[in-house]
């Protein structure tokens, strides 16, 4: 498989400096950063590609780009505080610096999505990398046919990008539907796991489906998509693994013979469905 990573430096481990132009605390643990390359160059990437984001002394973490390359002045990432590096990244604020390597890996193959019906199924933090594609489709809406977006969260308080969600709810450009596993007092919407959204919709068999969410989600979503009869080459998954180098060397993200960092993180389902350990 090919790889669309960009490592311009002679040392593939050399990060590039970014200015944090804006930050926003999305939830208790998730923070959004809007970044610009400090050397003034334009950051080019494909929706779905990843970055290695770092703070000197703390290390690097792989993060999917959360904005579309159609929005050219800056780009977004969302970092959840889970460990040592993410804690250090999330301690940074507007006007300060973050470092990135990338874009790395293969994002969404837009040639397979253009002029097609598209359904994006995102769970929890899975909305971040798919947001790059959502924005892309909305910005080039005429290049795509029907566009549905299903988003599931554990609770209303854990919903990300609430401004975006509000806009998508109103937008005629996307059929946005959402659900939460557990409602709170103010929630008037759907309650239940994300597959309930699939059940209440008519999904044509020629739809291109993108799935991104926690590992458990894939199995149940796939059962529904198989019942509809969607060919596996038309289903795209965005996988997550432990990663260190991001350039296909260190071995941590390997699933069988594939490196998630280089061969993915986006795979068509038929590429990975028979690979043991991909979804177990």
């Amino acid at each position, binding site marked *: 498989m090919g790889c669309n990573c960009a490592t311009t430096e002679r040392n593939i481990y050399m990060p590039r400096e970014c200015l944090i132009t804006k930050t926003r605390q999305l939830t208790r643990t998730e923070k959004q950063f809007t970044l610009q390359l400090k050397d003034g160059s334009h950051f080019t990437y494909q929706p779905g590609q990843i970055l290695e984001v770092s703070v000197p002394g703390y290390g690097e973490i792989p993060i999917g780009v959360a904005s579309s390359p159609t929005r050219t002045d800056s780009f977004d990432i969302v970092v959840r505080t889970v460990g040592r590096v993410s804690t250090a990244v999330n301690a940074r604020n507007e006007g300060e610096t973050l470092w990135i390597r990338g874009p790395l890996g293969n994002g969404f193959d837009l040639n397979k999505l253009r002029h097609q019906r598209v359904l994006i199924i995102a769970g929890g933090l899975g909305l971040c990398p798919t947001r790059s594609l959502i924005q892309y489709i909305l910005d080039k809406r005429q290049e795509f046919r029907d566009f549905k977006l299903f988003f599931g969260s554990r609770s209303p308080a854990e919903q990300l990008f609430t401004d975006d969600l509000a806009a998508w709810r109103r937008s005629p450009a996307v059929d946005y539907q959402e659900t939460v596993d557990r409602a709170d007092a103010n929630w008037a919407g759907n309650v239940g796991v994300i597959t309930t959204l699939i059940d209440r919709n008519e999904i044509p068999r020629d739809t291109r489906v993108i799935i991104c969410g926690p590992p458990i989600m894939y199995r149940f979503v796939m059962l529904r998509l198989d019942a509809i009869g969607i060919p596996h080459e038309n289903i795209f998954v965005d996988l997550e693994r432990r990663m260190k180098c991001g350039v296909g*060397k260190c071995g941590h993200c390997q699933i069988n013979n594939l490196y998630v960092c280089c061969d993915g993180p986006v795979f068509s389902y038929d590429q990975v469905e028979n690979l043991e350990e991909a979804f177990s």
Partner: protein
Amino acid sequence: MKTYFLPQHELPSFVSTLLQTTRVIGPVAKKHKFVFARLASADELRLDYDVTILPPKKAIFPQTQPLLKFSPEGYEDVGTPQPQILFGVHFYDVKALDMLDEFFTDGHADRRYLDNREATTIVASSIQHINERAFFASVGADVKPRGHDAFLTAIEGGYVYEILTDKGEALIKHGSFRAATGDEVSSAYAANAEALDKCPQHIYHSTREIGRRVRAAFGRDEVWDELAEKCFSCGTCNTTCPTCYCFDVQDKWNLDQASGVRERTWDGCLLDDFARVSLGEGATDNFREKAAQRFRHRVMRKTSYLNEKLGGPACVGCGRCAIGCVPDIADPVRIINRIMEG
């Protein structure tokens, strides 16, 4: 290129001369075992070694290696390496280095590896003593070593020095070499053929057949549970393997608490935390939770996953994993035979 002869008694002065100008790393004794180490004098060199504890890859891909330097302002490159000579490498370890060359060049060229590789002159040497766990004659037999610059073969009365590259040729001016005779070249050929003939352990299946059958055994949990029952997840089979190249990356501050290094350290897929990710609030998920899954991953990687890229298995038959594994469950010969028996 040409083939030369160096009389037995001239070897020490050849090596001594090399040592005066260049860092030379060769096999030396450590208790009753051998290790590759920087030579302080020519008489430390033990070309009669059977196998070393760690493979010579450490001279090019060190156990811990800086990738970058950092300061609060950002990152900078680390320096470029000095030339070095890796002396007395057995052919199976040359094959392993060939594989590492492929891994670190493929896709994104890793200059941290390749700079060291290019600064290294490799003088391979014939195998004078064979470890009882070696199976180098029957694994990837059609994959030939290519990455060495010269090949030194011990024969009666001295050494035949076969030159493969300019770097190999550049060394002969430091010793009392003369052109080898036809008989000496024949003797060297015979000595290396004999090492293959005498290799004690054998795998009696083709690479293709092993790759196919081992891969097909992926789902046979009972086999993997049985094979890994005594596994300590200590990673010795990874750490001592000449073709393993996985690594972890960590940042360390210097004493000034402001600057520091980002460095990589050998990691191993048998170790418990190799594929573990943080989920936050202390929770983790491990993509290969059981020792048997990790054990299987290694076997798959050596016998099957990388074959297409390498044109052979990611194993050279050195026997280090078999020697190092205390419960003695890591020997590829026994693992493959167990799987092939059904």
